[in-house]
């Protein structure tokens, strides 16, 4: 083989290797998801484990989600008012604020905050448990660490996410109301009635909830997989934590596009 052909073959081999690597990675992630789901039956008998995880995954993320939601709603109220008042349509401010929150910003921003707040913490926790042999230790105590450690966290993530997104949206609408009606003088009745007329419970609110369920699943799954698959060293855990935030954010934004196209496209 001549040198250029060999170099080309080397490149091809490298490409192939990384392709196989990615597939292997995805395969491991799916196997882990299966094992996690397999533990759900066990979880029913130990609700206490779920409760504790709902606390650290849900309750501890609630404050940042609530504060961000309020501010995002207030900004929407302000920006929306400036633009809509140019067309004399400030009556529809409520629609604009609520539609953008319920359909998009609620699920998406809450999921991004969740990935940064709870997802990174989950990865670091699991990664360190692996590094300090706690997971091995459980295995040697004849306790399945996936069932006992990962599954409750997974369930807590999926339960928390829609609730967090709903809080985000609801407080956002209140923030928009405060700025629009309270500060800028939009009519109180028009704000709510226009909103109620244009926002649909099934098309908008329910679809938002479905989106956030999907985001909750994906973010928690990524976080747990990264932690469980992390190199058991300090560098490994720190890299895995970064990867969790990056992968979750990209996954949320990409999935949001797909889900939006499926739900709201005609």
């Amino acid at each position, binding site marked *: 083989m001549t040198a250029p052909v060999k170099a080309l073959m080397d490149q091809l081999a490298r490409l192939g290797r990384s392709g196989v690597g990615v597939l292997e990675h995805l395969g491991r992630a799916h196997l882990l998801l299966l094992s996690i789901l397999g533990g759900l039956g066990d979880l029913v008998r130990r609700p206490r484990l779920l409760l504790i995880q709902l606390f650290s995954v849900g309750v501890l993320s609630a404050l940042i989600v609530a504060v961000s939601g309020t501010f995002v709603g207030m900004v929407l109220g302000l920006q929306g008012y400036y633009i809509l008042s140019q067309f004399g349509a400030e009556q529809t401010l409520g629609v604009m604020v609520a539609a953008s929150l319920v359909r998009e910003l609620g699920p998406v921003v809450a999921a991004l905050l969740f990935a940064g707040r709870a997802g990174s913490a989950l990865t670091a926790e699991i990664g360190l448990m692996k590094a300090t042999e706690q997971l091995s230790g459980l295995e040697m105590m004849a306790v399945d660490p996936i069932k006992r450690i990962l599954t409750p966290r997974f369930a807590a993530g999926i339960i928390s996410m829609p609730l967090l997104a*709903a809080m985000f949206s609801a407080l956002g609408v209140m923030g928009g109301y405060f700025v629009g009606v309270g500060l800028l003088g939009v009519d109180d009745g028009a704000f709510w009635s226009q909103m109620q007329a244009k926002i649909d419970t099934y098309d908008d609110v329910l679809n938002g909830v479905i989106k956030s369920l999907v985001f909750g699943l994906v973010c928690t799954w990524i976080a747990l997989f990264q932690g469980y698959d992390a190199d058991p060293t300090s560098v490994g855990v720190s890299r895995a934590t970064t990867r969790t935030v990056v992968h979750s954010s990209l996954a949320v934004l990409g999935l949001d596009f797909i889900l939006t196209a499926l739900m709201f496209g005609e």
Partner: protein
Amino acid sequence: MNHGRTIEILVGAFMAAGFVALFFLSMKVSNLSASGTGSGYEIEARFDNIGSLKVRAPVTMAGVRIGRVSAINFDAQTFEAVVILRIESGYEDAIPDDTFAKIFTAGLLGEQYVGLDAGGSQNFLKEGDKISLTQSALVLEEIIGQFLFSKAEEGAARE
């Protein structure tokens, strides 16, 4: 108070706050009570042209929303648009059978909706009945076309 109990209370509060938010979104932000799809009854109206009427567009009577458009089909035999209107429960025996259905536009650029003008008949429409009196949507291009045509005719007549 011990630690375990604090966690229980906080998780309880969190779940409650989440459900309150969901309730707020469905009752106050959108209107769950007014958008029930299963209840009420359906009537049919046929239009020559529905413009840009969409499924879920409001159906109003005297300006009050009493239902929504639940389906729009095309009848290949008569070349008409078949619009199914779902009237919410509570409006039984409220639509006389000589009611006139029109497609209106809310505001200059707004959404299109179906407006019903009540007739004087004592017979009321039931599930599956048809509204025979309809008026198509106003299509902007047609109006402009008619306007130009009549102007041209005027000009021709003057010469």
